[in-house]
């Protein structure tokens, strides 16, 4: 049977991995290639690279780094950040990405998902959504979690899946960086609404948070985190052993 996936996320700026707490206060952690090789060795099931660069030079550095990673690491790679057009899909897929994650780009142009899915297949298109509770509803935020779009999140995600998104990353702004566990109510609402793989993001502080995620939400497909892996607060190999001990199917 299929395993639950553990996915480290690498935010890359100007060719270096950074991770903020609640999206501000960036810290330089390490080289993307070094980290990616390390994660691949210790059992990461997939890697996500977010390009948080704004400049054209930074984007070039990112694609160079991605190409280097993809020539050395043979597990699935997902790329996000700065994906606004089908040409952006093409740019990162040519560098060796397997899936492309869209966020603000899909909010600006809802046809992007449909166009990309038609050209590259649903399995290639990931909708990534930054969500925060506002006035008792789940609200979609854009621009790295800074701008309230006013859109209700569950209906937005359903629409993206109907348009061809083959996977959903749910990042809870409410729990991101707090390290007290994933946002289970928010994730449950998404799982109840769609039938494609859902990846939980935001809030993991310990191996126990992943165990709780997979136990309480048996249909969740993957857990994603950044800083706790980068700073080795949680070792993926230990986490996998813990999952198996708890009867959760994991790849070792």
């Amino acid at each position, binding site marked *: 049977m*299929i395993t639950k996936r553990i996915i480290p996320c690498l935010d890359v700026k100007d060719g270096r991995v950074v991770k903020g707490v609640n999206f501000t206060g960036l810290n330089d952690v390490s080289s993307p290639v070094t980290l990616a090789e390390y994660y691949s060795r210790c059992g990461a099931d997939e890697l996500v690279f977010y390009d948080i660069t704004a400049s054209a030079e930074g984007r070039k550095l990112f694609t160079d780094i991605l*190409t280097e990673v993809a020539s050395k690491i*043979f597990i699935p790679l997902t790329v996000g950040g700065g994906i606004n057009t089908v040409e952006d899909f093409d740019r990162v897929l040519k*560098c060796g990405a397997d899936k492309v994650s869209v966020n603000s780009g899909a909010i600006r142009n809802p046809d992007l998902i449909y166009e990309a899915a038609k050209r590259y297949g649903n*399995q290639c298109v990931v909708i990534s959504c930054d969500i925060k509770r506002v006035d008792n509803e789940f609200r979609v935020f854009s621009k790295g979690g800074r701008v309230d779009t006013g859109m209700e999140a569950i209906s937005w995600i359903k629409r993206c899946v109907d348009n061809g998104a083959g996977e959903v990353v749910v990042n809870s702004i409410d729990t991101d960086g707090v390290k007290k566990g994933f946002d289970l109510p928010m994730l449950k609402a998404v799982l109840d609404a769609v039938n494609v793989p859902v990846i939980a993001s935001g809030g993991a502080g310990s191996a126990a948070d992943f165990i709780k995620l997979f136990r309480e939400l048996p249909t969740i497909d993957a857990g994603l985190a950044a800083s706790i892996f980068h700073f080795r607060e949680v070792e993926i190999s230990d986490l996998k052993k813990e999952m198996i001990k708890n009867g959760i199917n994991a790849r070792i």
Partner: protein
Amino acid sequence: MIAIVDYGVGNLFSLKSSFSAIGEEVTVTSDENVLRNADKIVLPGVGAFEDAAKKLKSSGLDQVIVSLALSGKPLLGICLGMQMLFDESYEYGCHKGLGLIPGKVVPMEGVIPAELKIPHIGWNALKMNQDCEITKYIKEGDFVYFVHSYYADCDEKYKVAVSEYGKDLTAIVKKDNVFGCQFHPEKSGEVGLNILRAFSREV
């Protein structure tokens, strides 16, 4: 030299890199002479069957690949490339494949339990049915990475390995010098590289 067939379907960067990583000389080509001179051929593919089959046919490479395979040249189909080895596929209609392995490609929908998500995406364990050259360096229970919504329905004698997802889905096939992997060896970590190593050295 190993030749990866380029017929305009999918991204061949990782596949090429993975053969390079295990020290094999590899080329990506749509030139029929390069295919004829290659020691082994890899047929990749992602996306929809009909589109890929049309592209392969219009490139004229379908007949080249079939004749080379029938002459004994080792051929490895990967993912959609594996599905194309069969007689036909029922993905959005009925479309002819290369006919190198008897069998058909059919949807998972309605066959696996409804609560399981389709596509079958992620890491799943291999259950070995029989020995084969390309599985010499891997073992029962090793995990490989799948992304597919259709699977190959064929005689048990061609199934080298299966993977359980509501039912046993065909994972590795073999008929004479023709091999196929439903999953992506180039995305399956060290296990995947070991399959490519075995295809390079043991076949």
